[in-house]
């Protein structure tokens, strides 16, 4: 890759660096920063294969091979977290993806500019709310005397302890995610929609195309690259989850359906002090995530010619 191309023969690399050294000098500190704060922790993952005895030596003391991986593979709590993780991420993805697209299409149809701006402004707002406040809101809304139970009470339903019932957790997770992210998720779609050639709409309209047909035959194909890019990112994120939200909303009563890989890593590592074990679990999650995003990207590149890199 390096050194052999023709450009390098024309002017050697050291001459180029010497000529542009002032521009390159900008990068010295940031690159050191990246090495320390982004790449050193990646290397720090070796403690998944080594014994870490605490203290500043983040690379651990001796090799133990796959001991920690074998341990968590045999741990039913890990597999529970793994399954919960998939269930929560996939159900969120299935609900959110079409809803965001439909919401963007509907916003795009609003004729009155002021109304459009207002809807956008309001719907983006929850994105900026702290997770602590979101979790607090969810708990207040769902408490025994809260508005949801009051509303259900009008229909004769006894108060439900949503927050401590595991069967409710996926619904709470998905609904609160939609509340917080639906509006913000439309931004890239709306941006892509403004880029569609208006002549396409005119031509289709003269042909007598209905609104639904316009959306289906002009708008959606026009924003397909954006749809694919977001889908690739989302698929890559399936092994992830909204860690902070779950940490704030779950409790031992709901671990059964709410404990995911990242919260399991947190409890094992930070709370329990099993650093190497927790790192092994975290590394497993990170590597699967990387494989997922790479695969999704390759498929998207081949089928729709749009990709992240």
């Amino acid at each position: 890759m390096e050194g052999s191309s023709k450009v390098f023969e024309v002017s050697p690399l050291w001459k180029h660096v010497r000529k542009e050294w002032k521009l390159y000098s900008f990068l010295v500190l940031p690159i050191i920063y990246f090495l320390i704060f982004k790449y050193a922790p990646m290397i720090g993952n070796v403690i998944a294969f080594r014994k870490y005895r605490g203290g500043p030596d983040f690379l651990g003391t001796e090799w133990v091979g796959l001991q920690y991986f074998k341990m968590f593979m045999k741990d039913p709590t890990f597999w529970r977290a793994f399954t919960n993780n998939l269930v929560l991420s996939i159900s969120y993805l299935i609900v959110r993806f079409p809803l965001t697209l439909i919401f963007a299409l509907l916003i795009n149809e609003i004729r009155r500019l002021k109304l459009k701006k207002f809807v956008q402004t309001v719907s983006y707002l929850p994105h900026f709310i702290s997770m602590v406040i979101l979790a607090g809101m969810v708990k207040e809304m769902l408490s025994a005397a809260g508005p949801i139970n009051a509303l259900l009470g009008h229909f004769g339903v006894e108060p439900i302890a949503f927050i401590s019932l595991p069967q409710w957790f996926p619904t709470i997770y998905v609904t609160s995610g939609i509340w917080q992210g639906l509006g913000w998720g439309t931004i890239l779609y709306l941006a892509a929609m403004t880029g569609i050639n208006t002549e396409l709409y005119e031509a289709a309209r003269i042909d007598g195309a209905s609104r639904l047909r316009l959306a289906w035959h002009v708008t959606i194909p026009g924003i397909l690259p954006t749809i694919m890019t977001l889908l690739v990112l989302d698929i890559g994120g399936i092994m992830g989850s909204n860690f902070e939200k779950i940490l704030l909303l779950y409790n031992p009563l709901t671990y059964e359906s709410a404990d995911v890989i990242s919260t399991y890593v947190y409890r094992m590592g930070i709370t329990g002090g099993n650093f190497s074990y927790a790192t092994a679990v975290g590394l497993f999650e990170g590597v699967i995530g990387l494989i997922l995003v790479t695969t999704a990207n390759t498929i998207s590149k081949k089928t729709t010619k749009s990709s992240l890199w």
Partner: protein
Amino acid sequence: MKETSSSRIFQGINALIMTLVVFFTLYPFVYLIAQSFSSEAAVYGGKVSFYPVDFTALTYKVILSKPDFFHYYGNTILYAAVGTLIAVTATSVMAYPLSKDKLRLNKFFIPFVLFTMYFGGGLIPNYILVAKTLDMRDTIWALVIPGAISAFNVILMKTFFASLPNELEESAKVDGLDVYGIFLRITLPLSKPILATITLFVIVGIWNSWFDASLYIQSKEKWPVALYLRQVIETAISPTEIGASSEQANQIAATVKSAAMVLTSLPIICIYPFVQKYFVQGMMIGSVKG
């Protein structure tokens, strides 16, 4: 163009859907505000829905009469100010050379930055590095340094820099400015919109963050307000600790969470409508591939 009746029906349904979305988005805020001004009996009786019942501002009076809340607010403001200064400076310094196509080594440096968007060290290695190896525990640095530069913000700024017209820099070069002079006196002043965007992203991020503080900040007096709020919500802080007398305690216990949530989210909600366009703009620039 003539409105067909089916088009008018569609507009009507769409307006209805939008009204519902706006209602459901705003309702939790309305409820929190209503609850925070209601009496204990009304809150526990499930009587509060849209407006305060048996109006009382006692909880706010008690919270605001003690220095605690202002103290934690002050911490957050300090962390946000220092963190933003570091983050914005570092991000622009890194993004500037990366935006220059003529730098051949960018072929290596850009993937070096991008890779960190798709893979990271993970919770434990990061924790060990910051807390044990670098021993930043209980200092502001643990909160503002590890997240100072994000690949996303670098790519955002690099894309913006690359979109600036080259002629300005060329003519500045003719006038005798070197690379540093051009960056400081030409590029940065032209980049106010993206600087505003990144500044706001960083401020909101620090304002809302509590998890890093829960990992690294042991001394309670150094907590940011979000972490304090978390303790209030988890009822780890009793009404008397907040400053209530024993006869006020029940009233405070009923409404302290909602009042604290209102007080903490107030700055963001008040500033948000005026700066919203910078966030949106940032997302749009970011959507152009790096």
